[in-house]
């Protein structure tokens, strides 16, 4: 994967993760143009786009667009599933996730994304492992443990 962007229906960026080295200027340009292109698509249309020399896969969940750019040889359908899996992870963590959750806790959204996709490749194919780490956080949190657990080791 080359990059993933999350943006609202008004075109406001909520999350951006780039897996290829690009200058800031280029990133801004791509973001701006791509957001416009995707927002212009009608609801019944294909989830795949060929934009410039990239393949774009996008899906809308409620008010948020998830948009990924993939390489030529990558499988478009599986990228849709990558997006879906990420949404499932977010949903499980936040409990019926909504856009507000992602806005106000975007650093956590990044942490979950980094645990799932590393360097643009799917890292963990077992949902249980990723979620267990995150679920137990709440248990630990309730038990009032807020110190670094170095002592456990």
């Amino acid at each position, binding site marked *: 994967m080359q990059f993933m962007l999350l943006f609202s229906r008004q075109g406001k*960026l*909520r999350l*951006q*993760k780039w897996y290829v*080295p*690009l*200058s800031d200027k280029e990133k801004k340009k791509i973001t701006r143009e791509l957001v416009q292109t995707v927002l212009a698509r*009608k609801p*019944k*249309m*294909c*989830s*795949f786009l*060929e*934009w*410039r020399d990239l393949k774009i896969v996008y899906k809308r969940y409620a008010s948020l667009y998830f948009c990924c750019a993939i390489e030529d040889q990558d*499988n478009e*359908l*599986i990228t*849709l*599933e*990558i997006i879906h899996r990420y949404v499932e992870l977010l949903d499980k963590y*936040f*409990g*019926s996730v909504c856009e*507000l*959750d992602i806005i*106000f*806790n*975007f*650093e*956590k959204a*990044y*942490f979950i994304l*980094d645990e799932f996709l*590393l*360097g643009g490749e799917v*890292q963990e*194919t*077992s*949902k249980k*492992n990723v979620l*267990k*780490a*995150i*679920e*137990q*956080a*709440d*248990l*630990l*949190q*309730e038990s009032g*443990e*807020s110190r*670094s*657990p*170095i002592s*456990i*080791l």
Partner: protein
Amino acid sequence: MSDIVEKTLTALPGLFLQNQSVGGPAGVKASFSSRLGGLVRGITALTSKHEEEKLIQQELSSLKATVSAPTTTLKMMKECMVRLIYCEMLGYDASFGYIHAIKLAQQGNLLEKRVGYLAVSLFLHENHELLLLLVNTVVKDLQSTNLVEVCMALTIVSQIFPREMIPAVLPLIEDKLQHSKEIIRRKAVLALYKFYLIAPNQVQHIHIKFRKALCDRDVGVMAASLHIYFRMIKENSSGYKDLTGSFVTILKQVVGGKLPVDFNYHSVPAPWLQIQLLRILGLLGKDDQRTSELMYDVLDESLRRAELNHNVTYAILFECVHTVYSIYPKSELLEKAAKCIGKFVLSPKINLKYLGLKALTYVIQQDPTLALQHQMTIIECLDHPDPIIKRETLELLYRITNAQNVIVIVQKMLEYLHQSKEEYIIVNLVGKIAELAEKYAPDNAWFIQTMNAVFSVGGDVMHPDIPNNFMRLLAEGFDDETEDQQLRLYAVQSYLTLLDVENVFYPQKFLQVMSWVDASLSF
């Protein structure tokens, strides 16, 4: 994962909600009162971009003061960092904060460190001068007894790391390949994958260790090694033919449901793993009958097993079909694959239709009859409301153009061209039309007309070769003298007519062509 690692890893997200007293969804509400929450709400309340700029600049100046102040605690620094990331995401420059991100990763406790690393991965890029400062922190964390810190260090290495400093961390990471914890081994493999991408010669000597990773008892580690293998095989497939058997065996086990149930995604066993393996097999079997023969069984099995009506099953099917067509052909498999493509193309689901068309485009060289079978559907797709489907259909038609259908196909392409605004598409399509016109033009008049249309739409963005070739063609002509004369005559006449028309704007290249033709060929 063992209990200990679980506890350490899970304590980490727990620290996120340090400031609040409840966890989970309720914690979200509490974060409304955080500084970030205040900033976000402030921005949402504004109506104009100008006001937003003002507010953010204010925020940035106050952040700048806070991060430079000696009294700022690491906890406060973490809070500032989050807001800096947010501002940068909205497009404002916060480069004064970069050095503090590195410091935060260096000095902070677990959560602060994690935010620091996150900020670094988002702010900096591969060639940034500050990146070198990160290396010491990474080295230290890789050697830490705290597994969470090791994980964080491995994660950041996989995302961004200066190439020149690879030798400094390479031995430490190699070491981690033998770690007892699956998560560490897995992340170490991915870090090495990153090194392979940016500096392949530096990891030459550890290919043996990759083989060990491939045979690792934990699926996650094995899956991670596939990313490296895919790249290596892409560059040099002959070097890895001996591994074909292993890949086939793994795929057989996955498809046969031998993996632990947690690796299922909507009842499909490890789809990403399957797809990665299919791609690797496709590369290994290309033009190689003996190797391909090893795979026929498992490919047949995969095609058969993909029965569920779920997107992910279709994804696997598509990849399977792709592989079947890439390797040394076997007729039964090809038949089954062709049926699959047929189902895709006829599917009412628009995504599948798109993929069906794409697959047809791919196989058209090997099996032109397949496209003929579905020609009705293809013709329907030409008038599909979705421009992407239309474009894909045109792409397909471009490949099956011949002297009989060229007129219709080019006409459709020109129609599409008139509607399209995107430069990239115009350049691409114009090139194709010019090529087809030259190859299959049924008569001179049509050829000139088409080229004129191409020039007026393609205008100044098209490739300079197109008008150049055209002019050369007119100048050198064909073997038949009378043909040449007719062609040139027609060209000259048509241009004179066009130039006579008033109030019409022609792109510059077109004008050049017209003036050259009229000047050098008219008599």
